[in-house]
């Protein structure tokens, strides 16, 4: 498959880009932020996403979705990134769907149709400390009655406080197991924290949460492959969103270079800035290609996907990070003001860069996957 969008994907982009730009531009984020919104996203907007079929775009058709792939989801995520749109799309429609579809069974039948119908928000309760360390999960699931008792603490759970279901990774029978924990489960508490980008992420406490045996997503003690699918999808999605954030910041900055005058000329005439902008362009293009390659390999079910996912998350993190830093610097003083949008891009990039493994984590993963 050639590494560019085919006609159908290009059409999707042509409909998604104006849709997101019109319904949820950066002013939409500002409005939620300035009204101290407690949900973390707009349910009205989610309803409009539903009209476009977006919540279930990755859900297999037999569960009521569109059965699309990561390349298509990436198109939506890039526009979400470009507009800094607060949305549960990444955790619910990408990460959770990837895990449930991989596992199949009761929980897939229960939640996938609900996600496709826009009726369920799902959060991913994976991390436990300030850094992403999925190989060191300490939360436990102990057999109790007909089911399990869950104990532990989770952090950086985006949308955890409003999710209809949390996917919780815990150790059970010696291996990682994923559980579908509904919001009304006794002993489950979510403490939402406002993050630098105005999103809400929860510290989730599991204090003797009792779940039925069929709350297991997949098989007990054999959740590694499902967790892997969840992580690969979410990391690739976050990378795609970062490409959107970086591109948005870069476009805004290039426009500014063509408008702002100092010393009697447009600052974009200065070679010192031209070269930095051109370098950034190259980094963004390479990041975009790496993300598309990861999406393509995931869609093909290729064994090489895991490496490329880490490459994409690291590269997108580097490139988008450069885009927002150069953006603020090249905007000069106004780049430091809250009134200007460029700072919001810097904030969102920082959150996405941290989510599901930062640049350093994924560079380390690339070394490990290459045997050093």
């Amino acid at each position: 498959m050639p590494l560019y969008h085919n006609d159908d994907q290009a059409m999707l982009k042509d409909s998604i880009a104006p849709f997101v730009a019109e319904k949820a531009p950066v002013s939409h984020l500002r409005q939620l932020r300035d009204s101290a919104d407690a949900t973390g996203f707009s349910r009205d907007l989610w309803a409009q996403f539903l009209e476009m079929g977006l919540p279930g775009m990755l859900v297999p058709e037999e569960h009521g979705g569109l059965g699309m792939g990561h390349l298509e989801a990436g198109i939506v995520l890039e526009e979400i990134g470009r507009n800094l749109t607060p949305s549960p799309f990444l955790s619910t429609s990408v990460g959770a769907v990837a895990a449930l579809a991989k596992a199949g069974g009761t929980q897939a039948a229960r939640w996938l149709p609900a996600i496709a119908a826009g009726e369920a928000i799902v959060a991913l309760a994976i991390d436990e400390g300030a850094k992403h360390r999925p190989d060191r999960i300490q939360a436990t699931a102990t057999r109790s009655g007909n089911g399990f008792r869950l104990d532990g603490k989770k952090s950086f759970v985006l949308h955890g406080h409003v999710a209809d279901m949390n996917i919780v990774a815990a150790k059970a029978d010696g291996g990682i197991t994923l559980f579908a924990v509904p919001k009304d489960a006794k002993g489950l508490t979510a403490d939402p924290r406002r993050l630098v980008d105005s999103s809400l992420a929860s510290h989730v406490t599991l204090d003797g949460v009792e779940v039925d045996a069929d709350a297991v997503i997949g098989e007990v003690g054999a959740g590694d492959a499902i967790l892997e699918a969840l992580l690969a999808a979410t990391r690739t999605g976050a990378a795609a969103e970062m490409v959107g954030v970086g591109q948005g910041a870069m476009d805004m900055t290039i426009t500014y270079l063509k408008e702002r005058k100092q010393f009697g000329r447009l600052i974009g005439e200065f070679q010192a800035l031209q070269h930095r902008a051109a370098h950034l362009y190259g980094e963004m293009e390479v990041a975009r290609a790496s993300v598309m390659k990861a999406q393509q390999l995931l869609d093909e079910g290729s064994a090489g996907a895991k490496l490329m996912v880490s490459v994409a998350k690291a590269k997108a993190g580097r490139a988008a990070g450069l885009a927002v830093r150069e953006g603020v610097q090249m905007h000069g003083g106004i780049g430091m003001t809250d009134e200007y949008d460029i700072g919001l891009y810097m904030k969102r990039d920082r959150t996405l860069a941290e989510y599901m493994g930062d640049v350093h984590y994924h560079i380390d993963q690339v070394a490990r996957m290459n045997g050093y």
Partner: protein
Amino acid sequence: MSDLDAFRADVRAWLEANCPPEMREPVRDEDDICWGGRKFKFKNEAQKLWLDRCVAKGYTVPDWPKAYGGAGLSPEETKILKQEMARINARPPLQSFGIWMLGPALLKFGTEEQKVHYLNQIARGEIRWCQGYSEPGSGSDLVSLQTFGEDKGDHWVVNGSKIWTSYADKADWIFCLVRTDKTNKYQGITFMLFDMESPGVTTKPILLISGNSPFCETFFDDVKVPKTQFVGEINRGWDVAKYLLGHEREMISGGGAGGDMVSIGALFAQSLGKNDHGELDDPILRAEMAAFDVDVFAYRAMGERFMDMWKTGRAHPASSNMMKYVGTELNKRRHELVMSGGGSDALEWDSEESKGGARARTWLRTKANSIEGGTSEVMLNVIAKRILDLPGA
């Protein structure tokens, strides 16, 4: 079975039957590469046999039309041939500036007669070409070139000098930018072709920091060039040159400017040793190598995307400048890491163990990557102006 699958099966069978075993060994030395030309001496029978068989099949230039010595393959078929050759590690039967540079220029700008004549010579490896572009006073500012061809009716008399002429001392013919109108900077250059054995042509190899001399200074002293030997139009050679520079950048970027794209950390894991966790036992170097690997694997995806888009007309015409910039900077970084990974062993200049200082010499050679074919700074200028549309200074 689709047509392409059938083609792949045919190619595989043909290669199996026709590529000599010696030609499936990695290239170790410069003389393992077949450059063709009047002065070329084959290293062995296998090298000659492989060339002859590929020439007969049109596989030295598989995507050129059959009338010009190619095999007339489609882009998809060409890709399959390359994949199948790579699968058995088959060496390229012939390398030359004729294939990479002059050929594409002739295919675009040449007359039918020129195509039949010169392209077939190139395809058969009969004539080795060199490129006369840069001059001592005209490097990045190439269009300021001064080598002058005085109009003498049916011929020009060319005087001047070129620099950085790759393998000029081994080449048979030169394609050369010559000023033919001193009053018009851009529309006063002609893209000439002439024999390096013409009276008045001399070459002098340049010793480089690598200790090697792949480049020459080339001097023209009253060289007579018939006025039939030019490509495109008289005084419009800059159009041809610009097209070729784009092509060169495409070639550099498509040809793996990031190096061989394998994990650099994996290459050094054994020699540098690993700790109890299986990590390369030099944490900061490991981190730098891993960060480099990320950039290389990402660039490999970029290379694939670039070629897919370029071949279908989707790429920005100036995007090859970005590929050249990113790829050559990566390759320089790779060889800095190769030197760090090799430590003092990599410093050895002429010992047998160091294969004649191969690592050090290659490291030094790569410094030219971001100078030749347009410097990184020129690439950034082009990206800024033509892609980002930033205001001109």
